[in-house]
C-alpha cells in the first residue's frame, strides 16, 4: 500500500508530461488536479482510474483518441497481474512501427528524452532559394504556375501582406457610443449623479465582430502551386485575425488550422505538408465536402462564417454528389466563395462535370491564379463593396456565375 501511495503520483506526473509532449495543453494546475483526482478514486478499478484522469486531462472531444491510446500504452496491463498492480507498471511502447496515424505524435512524445525520433524525414522542400527580384509589375500578372522558385518566394511575401477585410457582423452585444441608436440607462444614471440637475441622455450601439473564415484548399496534383500560395494567404489571414480555420483536401479532408498557427510561414507550411496525406494526389471533392458537412460544419460555421473554397473543380469521382454537398455547404454558411485558378484562361467555360455541378451553388466565383486576382479578391471582400456583391450573388445564385463575378474581373470570357 505504501509503495502504491509513493509510486502513483510519480506515474501520474509522468503520464501528464507525456500527454503534454504529445501536444495536449496540460499546465501544472491540471497536473495537480490529476493527482487529486487519482487519489480520490484510487486504484481499485482500472476504468475509474481511467475516467478520473480523463475528466481532468482531456478538455476537447478530439483529444479523446490520443488520451486513450496514451493511457493504454502507458499503463499497459499484463493480464496475469492482480488488479491495481498493473497501474504501477508504466512502460514506453515497444520498438516497432506505430499502429496508426495518430500514434506518431504520441510515439515521438514517448520517445522524447531517450533519443531523437529516428528516421524522421525532412519535410518536402517545396520552394527554396533567396529572392532576387526587381520587376514587380510583371510579377503581379504572372501566373503562379509559371513562376520560378525565387518569383514564387517574392509573390508569397506579397501575398502575406494582403489583409482580408470581410464585412463585420453586427452582434447583439452593446457598447457605449455617442452616436448610437439606443439609450444606455447605466451610463445615464452615472451621469445623473454627476450632473447638477436632470438626467442627461447617453447612447449605445451594437458592437460589430469580424466573421469566422473557413478556407478549404484543394491540394491535389493539378492545384499544387496554387495551393501553396493560397495556404500562404490563409496563413497571413490567420495571423491578422481570430477565428480562421483551414482545411486541405485531396483524396481526404485534413484540418490544418493548428499547423497554420505557427508564426513562421515556412515552418507552418512545412507542418501542413507533413500533416497532409496525398499531397498532389487525386481529388475527391464531393467526398471531402461531404465529410466537412458531416463532421465540421456545425462546429465551425455556426456564427456567420465565410467559406473560401479553393479548387479547380476537376473531380476524379465524376462529380458524384458534388452539387448536393456544395448546396448543403452554402446553406450552412453566410457566404460561400469559390476561388478557382482555372479562370486564368480567357476562354474558360464550365465544361468539366465538377465545375458544372458546383457553379450554381456558390455565392461567388473568382479567379485566384496571380497576385492581381488575389488583390481583387481582397477588394471584393471589402466592406464597402460587399453588400453590392451579396446582392449580385443572391440574384444569380441559381444562374450561371456571370452575375456574381464583378465586371472588373478582366479574364472572364
Amino acid at each position: 500500500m505504501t509503495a502504491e501511495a509513493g509510486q502513483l503520483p510519480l506515474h501520474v506526473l509522468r503520464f501528464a508530461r507525456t500527454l503534454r509532449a504529445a501536444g495536449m495543453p496540460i499546465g501544472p494546475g491540471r497536473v495537480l488536479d490529476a493527482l487529486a483526482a487519482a487519489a480520490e478514486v484510487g486504484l481499485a478499478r482500472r476504468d475509474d482510474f481511467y475516467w478520473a484522469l480523463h475528466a481532468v486531462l482531456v478538455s476537447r472531444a478530439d483529444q479523446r483518441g490520443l488520451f486513450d491510446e496514451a493511457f493504454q500504452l502507458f499503463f499497459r496491463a499484463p493480464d496475469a497481474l492482480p488488479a491495481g498492480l498493473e497501474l504501477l507498471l508504466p512502460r514506453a511502447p515497444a520498438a516497432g512501427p506505430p499502429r496508426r496515424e495518430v500514434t506518431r505524435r504520441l510515439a515521438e512524445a514517448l520517445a522524447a528524452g531517450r533519443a531523437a525520433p529516428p528516421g524522421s524525414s525532412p519535410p518536402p522542400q517545396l520552394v527554396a532559394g533567396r529572392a532576387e527580384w526587381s520587376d514587380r509589375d510583371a510579377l503581379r500578372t504572372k501566373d503562379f504556375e509559371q513562376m520560378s522558385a525565387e518569383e514564387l518566394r517574392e509573390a508569397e511575401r506579397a501575398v502575406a501582406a494582403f489583409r482580408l477585410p470581410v464585412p463585420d457582423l453586427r452582434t447583439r452585444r452593446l457598447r457605449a457610443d455617442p452616436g448610437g441608436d439606443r439609450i444606455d440607462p447605466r451610463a445615464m444614471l452615472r451621469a445623473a449623479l454627476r450632473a447638477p440637475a436632470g438626467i442627461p441622455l447617453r447612447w449605445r450601439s451594437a458592437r460589430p465582430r469580424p466573421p469566422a473564415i473557413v478556407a478549404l484548399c484543394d491540394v491535389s496534383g493539378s492545384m499544387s502551386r496554387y495551393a501553396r500560395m493560397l495556404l500562404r494567404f490563409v496563413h497571413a489571414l490567420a495571423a491578422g485575425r481570430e477565428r480562421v480555420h483551414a482545411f486541405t483536401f485531396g483524396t481526404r479532408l485534413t484540418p490544418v488550422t493548428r499547423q497554420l498557427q505557427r508564426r513562421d510561414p515556412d515552418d507552418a507550411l512545412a507542418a501542413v505538408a507533413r500533416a497532409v496525406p496525398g499531397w498532389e494526389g487525386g481529388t475527391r471533392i464531393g467526398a471531402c465536402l461531404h465529410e466537412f458537412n458531416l463532421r465540421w460544419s456545425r462546429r465551425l460555421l455556426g456564427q456567420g462564417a465565410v467559406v473560401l473554397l479553393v479548387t479547380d473543380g476537376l473531380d476524379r469521382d465524376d462529380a458524384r454528389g458534388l452539387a448536393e454537398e456544395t448546396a448543403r455547404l452554402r446553406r450552412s454558411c453566410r457566404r460561400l466563395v469559390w476561388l478557382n485558378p482555372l479562370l486564368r484562361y480567357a476562354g474558360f467555360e464550365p465544361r468539366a462535370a465538377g465545375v458544372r455541378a458546383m457553379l450554381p451553388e456558390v455565392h461567388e466565383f473568382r479567379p485566384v491564379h496571380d497576385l492581381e486576382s488575389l488583390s481583387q479578391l481582397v477588394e471584393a471582400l471589402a466592406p464597402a463593396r460587399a453588400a453590392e456583391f451579396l446582392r449580385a450573388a443572391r440574384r444569380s445564385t441559381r444562374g450561371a456565375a456571370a452575375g456574381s463575378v464583378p465586371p472588373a474581373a478582366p479574364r472572364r470570357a
Partner: protein
Amino acid sequence: MSVPAGAPPQGAPRALPASVDDAVALLASGDYVADRSLATGLFLSLRLGRPLFLEGEAGVGKTEVAKVLARALARRLIRLQCYEGLDLASAAYEWDYPRQMLEIRVAEAARELDRARLEHDLFSERFLVKRPLLQALEPDPAGPPVLLIDEIDRTDEPFEAFLLEVLSDFQVTIPEIGPVRAAAPPLVVITSNRTREVHDALKRRCFYAWIDYPDAARELAILRLRVPQAAERLAREVVGFVQRLRTRDLFKLPGVAETLDWTQALITLDRTALDGDAVDATLGVLLKYQDDVARVRGAEAEAILGEAVQEARVP
C-alpha cells in the same frame, strides 16, 4: 449499492456521493442511466468543487444531468440559457434603472442635497436585480444550488472571459458594491453542443466529460425508465432501429431524446411493434433534416427495420 434504499425525505439535503458507485446510484435515483465515465466526472467535480463541463451531440442528455442532480440532491436548480450576445446585465446582475431614476427625482423634489448619501442609497441591494449567476452565489437553506450554464457554445468569447471569475473563485464583482462571494460554492454544470470550441482557459477550470450515444443495453434501460408504458417488443425494436440508424451516414444522427419522442409518438399511434408504415409516417420525429429523411425513407428504412425486428426476436 452503497446508497440507503428508499427515497430521501422531502426537503432534507442529501449528502454528496462518496464514491463513483454512489454517483452512479445518485443519478439512477433520478431515473438517469449514466455510464462510468460520466459518473466519475460528476463524482470528482462534486468532490473537488469544480464545475463539470459536459460535451456531446444534441439530445444525449447533457442538460438532464443537471436537472437530475438538483432533484436527487434536493437542491435548487438555477438555469442560465446562453445565447449569442448574452451579457452581464442578463446573466449576472442589473441595476433597476427606472426605480433608481425615480429615486433621484424624489430626492430632487424633497430637496435632498446629500449626494454621497443618495449615491450610497441608489447603489444598494435594494435596487439590484439579481440574474442567475448572482442568484447561484446566494446562500440557500437546502444547500448550495445547482447552477446549469446551458449551451455555452452559443455565447461569445467576452462572456466566457467573464465566466472565468465566476467559475474559479465563485464570485461576481459589482463595481459599485464590491465582490459578492458565495459562502458555499454552487454545483456547476456547463453543457456545450460543440457548435464551436470553447476556450481552453475556461475548460481548464472544469472537469470534462464527453457524453456519447448510449449502447443498445443502456438505451433500452433509459427507454424502459422514461417511457414505461411502451410494450417490451416495441422498446426493443425501437432501440434496435435507432442503434442501426446511428451507423448510417446521416447529417444529424438521432439522440436519446429523439428515441424517447419517437417511442411516445408510436404509442400515441397505438403501436405495440414497429411496422413499415408507422416508421415512414413518423420518421420526422427521429430525423430532423429533409436530406436524411429522404435518404432513409422507403427501402433503407425497410432494410433497417428488418434487421431490428430480427434482432428483437432473439433475446
